[in-house]
Every structure is written in structure tokens, then in C-alpha cells.
């Protein structure tokens, strides 16, 4: 990854268009995505938070084939309609991703996923995994539980229910699920770029007055 390339990916460019990522996802499609891209995802997502990550990492076995799939760091509020027995997602915002930092690299390696959605960004080990295994980190909008739940058009399956509902692995279909790529498969991290800019501003604002 490059340390001094601040203006890759047109981060200062306004009026960028929103891109689309449609199912089935491929490594090639994901390779074209750059940090700073605004993307609407349509297709499948598999939820996974702490317990799922620990399971996938420790056992290296997934209850469903995750090859070319996306994992969403989310503990959704899901209710089952007592009549139809159908599951409905009531709230589905992202949870803090950094808690999965110990596991994410190995999960990319062992399960062949193409992307992760979460919030807050991830660390250097994950960034390295993104480059090695051709993945991207998508940032969803923290707190936007209702908008994001509306983008989920169906709950298709649930795995590892023994972990409890919020921790289980829910297979969801989404349409136009809004995210921003903040870490790409080329080693660029919007979080690092923003942090560096912030540090420069800090120096100027606090030390020259």
C-alpha cells in the first residue's frame, strides 16, 4: 500500500456518481471498487457478528458456502410473524467492525468472501487480507436502522440459530443497500486518508495561534 498517495480515488472530487454492485458478486467486480466509492448493493448478504466470526474462524467450517459472498456486521432485530411464520427484519444497522479484526483475515482466506459491510473501519491485518484475497470493506451508515431494514426485501434462511437471534447468520436479500467503500483491495483506506488530513489540520489549527 502507498503511504503518500493522498489523492487516489478522487477523494476530493465532488459529484461522483453512485455505483452498483449486483449479484452474483465476483472478484473482478470487487477489484474495480475504490476507497471513496458510493455503492448500492443488490443481492445477498449474510449477517455475522462476534459469535459467527469466532465460529467461522475457529472451525473453518461454514454452514453455507460463502464463496464470493458478502458478510454484514449486523445483529438485526428479526421478528417472526406468528401466522405466516415468515421472518421480518425490524432494524438492521451495522455494528462496530473492529471487534472482528482478530478473525477477518482468516475468514477471507478460508471462506473466499468478496466483501464485508460494517461501520468504523478495520485494522491493518484486515487491510492486508483485502489485498491478498481480493476483498473490499464497505461502510454502512451507523444508526440508520430503519432505512437499511427497508432495503432488505426478504429473509431467505437462517444458520447458527443456536447462537441466539442477533448473533445468528441470517441470509438476506437486499436491493439498493447503500454503502461507501472505505477500504479497497488495492490497499487504500479512506480512514487512513481522513485521519492523515485531520492530523495536518490539527497541527495548523492548534499550533499556530
Amino acid at each position, binding site marked *: 500500500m502507498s503511504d503518500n498517495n493522498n489523492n487516489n480515488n478522487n477523494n476530493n472530487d*465532488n459529484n461522483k456518481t453512485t455505483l452498483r454492485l449486483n449479484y452474483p458478486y465476483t472478484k473482478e467486480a470487487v477489484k474495480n471498487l475504490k476507497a471513496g466509492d458510493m455503492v448500492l448493493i443488490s443481492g445477498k448478504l449474510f449477517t455475522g457478528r462476534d459469535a459467527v466470526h469466532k465460529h467461522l474462524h475457529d472451525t473453518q467450517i461454514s454452514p453455507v458456502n460463502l464463496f464470493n459472498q458478502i458478510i454484514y456486521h449486523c445483529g438485526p432485530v428479526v421478528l417472526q410473524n406468528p401466522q405466516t411464520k415468515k421472518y421480518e427484519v425490524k432494524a438492521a444497522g451495522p455494528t462496530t467492525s473492529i471487534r472482528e479484526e482478530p478473525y477477518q483475515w482468516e475468514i477471507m482466506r478460508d471462506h473466499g468472501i468478496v466483501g464485508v459491510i460494517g461501520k*468504523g473501519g478495520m485494522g491493518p491485518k484486515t487491510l492486508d487480507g483485502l489485498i491478498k484475497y481480493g476483498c473490499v470493506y464497505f461502510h454502512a451508515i451507523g*444508526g440508520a*436502522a*430503519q432505512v437499511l431494514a427497508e432495503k432488505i426485501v426478504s429473509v431467505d434462511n437462517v444458520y447458527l440459530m443456536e447462537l441466539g437471534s442477533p448473533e445468528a447468520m441470517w441470509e438476506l436479500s437486499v436491493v439498493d443497500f447503500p454503502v461507501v467503500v472505505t477500504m479497497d483491495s488495492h490497499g487504500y483506506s479512506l480512514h487512513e486518508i*481522513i485521519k492523515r488530513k485531520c492530523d495536518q*489540520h*490539527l497541527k495548523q489549527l492548534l499550533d499556530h495561534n
Partner: protein
Amino acid sequence: MNEINVINLNSIGLKENIFNSLLELLRRTSTELTKDVTDILYKAYDDEVEGSEAKYAMKIIKDNLELAKSKSAPICQDTGTVLIYVNHPVGFPQREFMNIAKEVVIRATELGYLRQNSVNSINQKNAGNNIGLGHPSFHFEEHEHVNENEKNKIEIRIMLKGGGCENVGMQHSLPNITIKANRDLDGVKRAIIDVVAQAQGKGCSPGVLGVCIGGDRSSGQLESKHQLLRKLDDHNEDPILDKLEKEVVAIANKLEIGPMGFGGKTTLLSCKIGHLNRLPASFFVTVAYMCWVHRRQGIELDKDLKIKSWLY
């Protein structure tokens, strides 16, 4: 003249009334933000540049507010720590009130206004109903009434404080060489800005800060949260702190951290600063970070303990 008006919350009608008042307060706190907050969020949306990541994020934030309100559903699925602040007259039965408030929290959880969000720290079991040691968190204050009209006034405020933003709050002890913060107002400013810079977007920015200068470690924490109860468009009575509040917001918004840390113009919506006396040996600056989902609402009760008016 000094006669104490003892309220019996267990009398049938009153109990039902206060239960319903609290439930409605909790519902509104979880599903709607108050006007002082939405005004400033909408302005932040307007300020961001068309086509930027920040505008994209603020648009979703705006849509989410409208959707949550119309569906009467939680704005964010992390419904946070439930903090209940009661300002009450002499003779107010705190323990009875706590029992009723806990029943309200259980009901609000069943109705989905609150997520099952309270976990035992030793065995990691989720209580399932949001009741456990220290939760909900109660804060009582007997008011000093100035006139006869105010004598029996009861005000209740609720704050829902999410975990992501709570995690990025900090308590600095001055002096701090790393951030060049001495024991003066410039040092205080540096300490506050350092919290914003370290948080980046992780507290679900744009955020609101509650700050306490001084106190001991625990009173500083309480006061910093208490500052978050202030209206965002108010002015600090202390001109020095008023100036500092504005300065902090201005500096923070030049850091280009932006909504969600995507870059952009609005990093901080507001900053509220209070102070407490300190020991000569300590100088704490405590910062409570609240995410854009700045959930707090309040009511004044009438003599039947029904909602008389909304405080925000």
C-alpha cells in the same frame, strides 16, 4: 407553609397515569429526535457538497429520521443505556418511582421501543428485559422551588445513550504532554479536540459533546452526560464557556472528519461545557460523545401525573 406534599404513586389512578406518561416519553425518545437536534442535522445535510460521500450519508440519516418517526420504530437498533433524570419536589417517593419506571422499561422492550440491551458483566447473559444492576440508570434531584407555583413541579427526562459513541468518550487528566494540554482553558480545548480527533467517525459522527471541566473522576462523568440534556440552541450562561463551546465546534468542523468519518464539513453538531470544582491535585476534562442519534426528551407532569408539557 412547610407542609410536605407526599405523593402516593401506588394509588390506582396515579400509578396508571405515570406509567402511561413514562411509556410515551420512552417511545418518543427512541423514535423521534427533538427539534433542536433535527434542525441542526438538516442544516448539516444542506451544508454538505452535492455528490459527496458526506451528502450521501446525511441523506440516509435524514431519510432514517423520517422513516423512524412515521413507523414509530427505533431510530437506531442500539437503543442504548436508558438514563432517567427526575427533578422532583420534597417528599417524592423515589423508590416507588423506580419500581414503576422499571415496569415501563420492560413494557417498552416488549413493544420494541427498546432492544434487549442489558447484559450481565460476569456471566454475559442478556437480561432480555433491560433490567439489571445499574440499569436503567436513575438520577434524582430534589429541586429548590423559587415560588409557590413551582413547589410541586415534577420533570422527567430520558436519555438513550448508544454504545458505539459511549466507547469513544474519554477523560483526560491535565497536564498532558502528548497533546500539549496544560491546566488552562487552552489545555481544556486541546483535550476536547483530541477526543474528536481520536473518535474520527467511530462514534457515528456528526456528534454532540457533553463536557465537564474539573470534578473528581465520577462526578466529571456524570456532569459531562448531564450537559447533553441542554438544548442544542441554548447559550452557556458563562461567557467564557460560551465562547469555548463555539470555538470547539468551529475547530472540530475544520478537521474534515465528516459524517461517519467519510470526510466532509460537519463533524460536530454541538458542544456543551459545564464545570465543577476540583482538588488542587487533579484537573480532569471529561468528554461524553453522543452520536447523531442524540436521543433525549423530557416531560413535565400535571397533578394527576399525566403529561402536562414536553420539555424539548
